[in-house]
């Protein structure tokens, strides 16, 4: 239900429509407007914000797409003005290295810890094989009971 409300609100937030000369441009428009972050409203993309600045950026995005700019050109145009902040998928540099490699690093650390843990547990619960004498004793006992051993619950 909440999800539905959100969808409706999002649909209302963006009121202007753009005509595209090419279906591919329209696809790129939607992808880029979902990747660019609204500088004013912080946690919305420009496609779901109704802030004036988001509207301006959508207008600009449409203009640039129609004039034949590449995705990289458009993104660097935006970054030059609003900083790396406007990208929800920031480029890789010293500031964002932790962001990009952090999950991989955490996974590796976890796997390493898991491996260590499993290994130490294995040595504790190593199966104990009965010795030859014990086997002999067992067999004797089984034979002695004449096959009438009861199953104990």
């Amino acid at each position: 239900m909440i999800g539905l409300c959100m969808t409706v609100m999002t649909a209302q937030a963006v009121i202007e429509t753009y005509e595209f000369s090419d279906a591919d441009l329209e696809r790129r428009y939607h992808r880029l407007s979902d990747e660019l972050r609204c500088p004013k409203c912080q946690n919305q993309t420009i496609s779901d914000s109704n802030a004036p600045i988001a509207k301006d950026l959508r207008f600009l995005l449409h203009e640039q797409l129609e004039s034949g700019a590449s995705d990289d050109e458009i993104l660097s145009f935006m970054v030059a003005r609003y900083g790396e902040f406007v990208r929800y998928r920031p480029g890789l540099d010293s500031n964002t290295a932790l962001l990009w490699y952090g999950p991989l690093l955490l996974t590796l650390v976890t796997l390493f810890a898991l491996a260590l843990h499993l290994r130490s547990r294995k040595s504790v619960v190593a199966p104990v094989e009965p010795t030859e004498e014990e086997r002999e004793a067992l067999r004797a006992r089984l034979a002695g009971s004449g096959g009438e051993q009861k199953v104990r619950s």
Partner: protein
Amino acid sequence: MPRLKLFLPLAAFVLLSLLLFRGLSLDPTSLPSALVGKPLPDFELEELHSGEILSRQDIIGEPMLVNIWATWCYSCRVEHPYLLELAAQGVRIIGLNYKDDGVKAIAWLKDLGDPYALTLADSEGMLGLDMGVYGAPETYVVDANGVVQFRHVGVVDAQVWQSLLAEWFPEFQSKGVAQ
């Protein structure tokens, strides 16, 4: 050694707490301007009053504040009296009338006083866009060479002037402006 191991979760917890505590004291709305350290972008805009076309070369040459304002912006009205005081002290302030109606803007300056040495009429917000403006008011410090040194988002008052802006205007720093 095995005893020390018992403290590992505690150590991890303390580290994580420190990290999150640091996160609490960060201001998520502070956005570093991409323009700091770069020249003020080129433009060709009309002066609000005279209608004369001005470019970047016409306004740079001495340290100045570039104040982004509009009549639709409530906080601009709040900071306006303080801008008048700064201008009276001799601080050069260039107004950038951002996405506004020229007639309303002229009326506003007539009513409330005009702190601006010049006012650029950026009715389409195109210079604003090139400067990375995302709202009003915003105030930029531009040095004598036309390089942007600092950007403040929000109202300029005595405290903001003293702590953030005055250092770029050494000749006015000592005077200060009382609130």
